[in-house]
């Protein structure tokens, strides 16, 4: 850069983007969350062409490009496919969660895809791929993914 900027200390302009969003959940996620909230049941959608059961449920099968019209109940129990343990309090971690936070990718019995959620009631060093876990539902359920509190070892 040329000499004209010598001795000039670059300034910082502090700002923040703060835009409230209302994500309309849509028919499919609404049905999933209402069943979860009111009946403590985990449900998925099924593709009639390839028979795959999707969790989280969605309207369209990504492989067949067809509409998933059938709903099926999915077990509260499943298998840990992989996991990680956050050791730093990353900014995205909700304020009620303190590290170490364990997240698992969990394939519930009856689903063909895995869901992400917390693992708890276990020490981080004891978590293994392939371990069996079970959903613990929240006392107060509001129709969000955190109506499942976490998964614990079976």
């Amino acid at each position: 850069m040329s000499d004209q900027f010598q001795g000039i200390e670059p300034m910082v302009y502090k700002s923040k983007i703060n835009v409230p969003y209302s994500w309309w959940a849509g028919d499919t996620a609404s049905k999933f969350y209402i069943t979860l909230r009111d009946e403590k049941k985990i449900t998925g959608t099924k593709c009639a062409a390839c028979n795959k059961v999707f969790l989280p449920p969605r309207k369209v099968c990504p492989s067949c490009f067809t509409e998933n019209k059938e709903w099926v109940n999915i077990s509260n129990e499943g298998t840990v496919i992989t996991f990680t343990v956050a050791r730093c309090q990353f900014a995205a971690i909700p304020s009620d969660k303190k590290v170490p936070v364990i997240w698992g990718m969990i394939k519930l019995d009856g689903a063909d895809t895995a869901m992400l959620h917390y693992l708890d009631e276990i020490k981080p060093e004891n978590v293994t791929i392939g371990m069996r876990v079970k959903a613990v539902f929240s006392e107060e359920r509001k129709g969000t993914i955190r109506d499942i509190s976490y998964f614990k070892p079976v």
Partner: protein
Amino acid sequence: MDRAAIIGVGTTKIEKSKIGETFADMAWEAVNNALNNAGMTIDDIDNVVTTSSDFWDGRTISCMAVGDASGAAHKNVSCVEGDGTYGAFYGMTRCLSGSYKTTLVTGHSKGSQSVSSLITNSAFDPIYERALGMDMVTACAMQARSYMHRTKTTPEQMAMVSVKNHGNALKNPLAHLPMKITVKDVLESEMIADPLHKLDCSPVSDGCAAVIIAHESAATKFKQKPVWIKGVSFCADSFFFGDRDISRAKSLTKAAKKAYAMAGIHDPKKEIDVAELYDAFTYQELMWLEEMGLADDSMAGKLLEKGDFNIDGRLPINASGGLLSGHPVIAAGLYSMAAVVRQIRGDVGGFQVKKAKTGLVQGLNGLGGQSHCVFILDKDK
């Protein structure tokens, strides 16, 4: 089919925080470097493609903010969100469309200006997943665990990627983090998200890169000997992280196969001389090598130990230092492309590899590499 070539490359230095330059200032520097490199003026450029991310930039239509400084005034300018290689793919198709002879492609990002954990958390589905608080680091840590489990790749082998790439960066004046480190240093660095240590992760950096792509009818009219695009492919996988076998990268395997076929490559292990891969995390370099057929399944770690991927090895990978040594998100793939173009020309400087006739560039976007773009570049048409 008509052919296209890369005839100019220009980049800024990759830095932790570019306090003296705005997005547009970075674009100005990279674009002028590319024009000088090509022996062109802005009047020789027919159209412009800029690559950026609105979330990273903190504004909507982030690409338009760099148009003026990229010489796009009164030209057809279009935008791509994703890795810079996706912008280059689009730029190339514009040259091949018959509408334009030359396309200037830029990519920019500044990691220093926001909070990467919050930005990458927003890549998760807002209705089902975002509230759990995962981000790119924790998602990739899950992928690393899954890959290690399937392939028996060790933490030491992953650490060796960091040692190699930070060491390579010592010869690259553009790199953000050139470092002479040991496997022990990596393994003893802070655990960020198991199994990833701090030195298994790339920094989030600032930078802008530009490449100039030309239709074959214009490719030889300027200063540089063209570097030809022989093959290219782009493939995407399912959006939901849990839909994929994340120990694999199906979309990368598909993209690489298509790119090899287009380039007439039958044995990529033998025919690729040099490659720049998307090593945002150490395990990724090894995983992408296997998924592209540049190493046998579960073997990349062992080949790395043998020195195969060193600058003087059988297949030098990330001779520039890779993204572990400086990771301007979005611009990243164009930096890799610029490095491979200059390897093939033989003018890359201190990290020049011995044989560089055919090179490979990989770019990706999305959690754990949801989508991938593979370019095969060659000295010969």
